[in-house]
């Protein structure tokens, strides 16, 4: 069986959940080989983690020479690994970095690229991907027709399955060109952990819009009672009430949770693009004409500043 390369997404050896989803998908397509590009001191922890999710092989690439540069060196690493391993596919997370790495890799190795896959299944002639396009109004199935399929996969595309892999470590030393070292990471500030689930990974997202008037207490209170992540519309970000990392929509994050609760959000097309594929949608809005109500499974016409705290209290009471 052919290898399937999976680019590991991690911070200091702490592997992020989307990587496990990629490994689970890789197993459908062939033999999962994780590619860890990171600090030598973090490698052991990462290897242990990916092994649990079926990695038969782990390519360990020491990043001390390349970590100060944006994207391009990682594309070179993957190109050289593709050359060596002739994998059946390359899977990367569909993040800002992941997509750009994939884009450069596609050009380097002359292979087709699919981004934002929400599902990947084996097909007669290679993997078949599912994507959601036009603000979630269409579902598209596609495949790569040239070279080694490169697929950028969105979070939540698969339920991670724990299954032991051999996790055989293979150290890999890439040759990095000078050209790949031209865009320098001058400074980096890791995002502060909020103590709440990661937006793109959360099962429940509670989000607020301009209707909050900048007071997010009702949103955060409800989110905490449900163990949910907190999101926002662009109006909130533009007003400076929350940083851009909270934004859901076309130019923010795209989420697809089990439950999405929008409060004080009108439901503009650009916002819908980021949440329309959520399983269950609930909205609270003062205006019964708000377009968000066209999408909902359940809606309340009312003031979020009274409805949400009352609901939160009731939920907390039920939880005892």
């Amino acid at each position, binding site marked *: 069986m052919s290898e399937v390369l999976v680019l590991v997404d991690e911070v200091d050896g702490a592997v*992020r959940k989307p990587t496990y989803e990629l490994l689970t998908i890789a197993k459908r397509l062939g033999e999962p080989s994780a590619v860890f590009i990171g600090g030598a001191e973090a490698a052991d922890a990462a290897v242990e983690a990916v092994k649990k999710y079926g990695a038969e092989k782990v390519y360990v690439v020491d990043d001390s020479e390349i970590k100060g540069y*944006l*994207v*391009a060196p990682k594309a070179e690493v993957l190109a050289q690994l593709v050359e060596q391993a002739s994998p059946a596919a390359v899977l990367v997370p569909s993040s*800002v*970095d992941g*997509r*750009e790495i994939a*884009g*450069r890799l*596609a*050009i380097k190795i002359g292979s*087709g*690229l*699919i*981004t934002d896959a929400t599902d990947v299944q084996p097909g007669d002639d290679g993997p078949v991907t599912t994507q959601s*396009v*036009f603000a979630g*109004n*269409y*579902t*598209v*199935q*596609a*495949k*790569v*027709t*040239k070279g080694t399929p490169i697929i950028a996969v969105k979070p939540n595309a698969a339920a991670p399955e724990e299954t032991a892999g051999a996790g055989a470590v293979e150290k890999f030393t890439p040759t990095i060109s000078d*050209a790949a070292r*031209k*865009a*320098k990471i*001058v*400074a*980096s500030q890791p*995002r502060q952990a909020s103590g709440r689930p990661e937006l793109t990974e959360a099962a429940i997202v509670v989000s607020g819009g301009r209707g909050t008037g900048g007071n997010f207490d009702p949103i955060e209170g409800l989110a905490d009672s*449900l163990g949910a992540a907190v999101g926002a519309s662009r109006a909130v*970000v533009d007003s400076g009430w929350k940083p*851009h990392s909270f934004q859901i929509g076309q*130019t923010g994050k795209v989420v697809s949770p089990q*439950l999405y609760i929008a409060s004080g959000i009108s439901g503009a*097309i650009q916002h819908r693009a980021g949440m*329309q594929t959520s399983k*269950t949608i609930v909205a*609270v809005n003062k205006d019964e004409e708000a377009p968000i*109500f066209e999408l*909902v*499974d*359940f*809606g*309340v*016409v*009312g003031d979020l500043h*009274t*409805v949400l705290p*009352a*609901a939160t209290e*009731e*939920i907390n009471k*039920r939880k005892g």
Partner: protein
Amino acid sequence: MNIVVCVKHVPDATADRQFESDNTVDREGVPGLMSELDEYAVEQSLQLKEKRATGDGGEEVTVTALTVGPEGAAEGLKKALQMGADKGVHVVDDAIAGSDAVATAKVLAGAVRKLGEVDLVVCGMASTDGAMSVVPAMLAELLDLPQVTFGSVVESQDKEFRIKRDGESATEVIGATAPLVLSVTDQSGEARYPSFKGIMAAKKKPVETWSLSDIDVDAGEVGAEAAWTAVISTEARPPRSKGEVVADEDGSGAKALVEFLASKKFI
């Protein structure tokens, strides 16, 4: 300094966008416009021009708007010219129809090469139809230039550029020396509206129309035939059937909401 700003003509996102029976995007049935996200790229290009023109020495800066697309795409260029770009280049060729991101990037790269000495290629963060956010990185790869992408803040001095990049897990500062490929997000600053003067002036600005042979790109490398990916099927998502909407009266809304959540086992 020569700036090329890449603008894409796209179907209006607020209209009912559809696929044709051959699984290509319907670009005729829906009104088109310059991708709103490319307005930010044009804005940053113009700001750079204005800053440099008035600084000491008063550098001469030319902003060329570049688009790849069918006849109608010229409309997108017009918007960029109305905003203040100096000239336009439209690459149009029947062979380009159905191109994927790789092919589009190849055509854009060919046009940038033909333009000669270019210091900056500026792009939007994503096209509002394809939304892959890969063309800028691909352009950098093809042109062998540094990529300084996803900038929410752009700063520069002479040939040194710095951006703030909001990544998934960190906020970074990325720096490189021009020539380079820059892409900017919708956080980079409100884009200007064309003024009446700008609209009048745009009518006299030069627009060149190039075919593939003008830019030395082989027709066999682009278009639907040469695409490295294929769409197998497209399916309209069934419209969400509107659920129950209740009016809140004296706390009834909260109760009904909690009942709903409980019935779906979220509590």
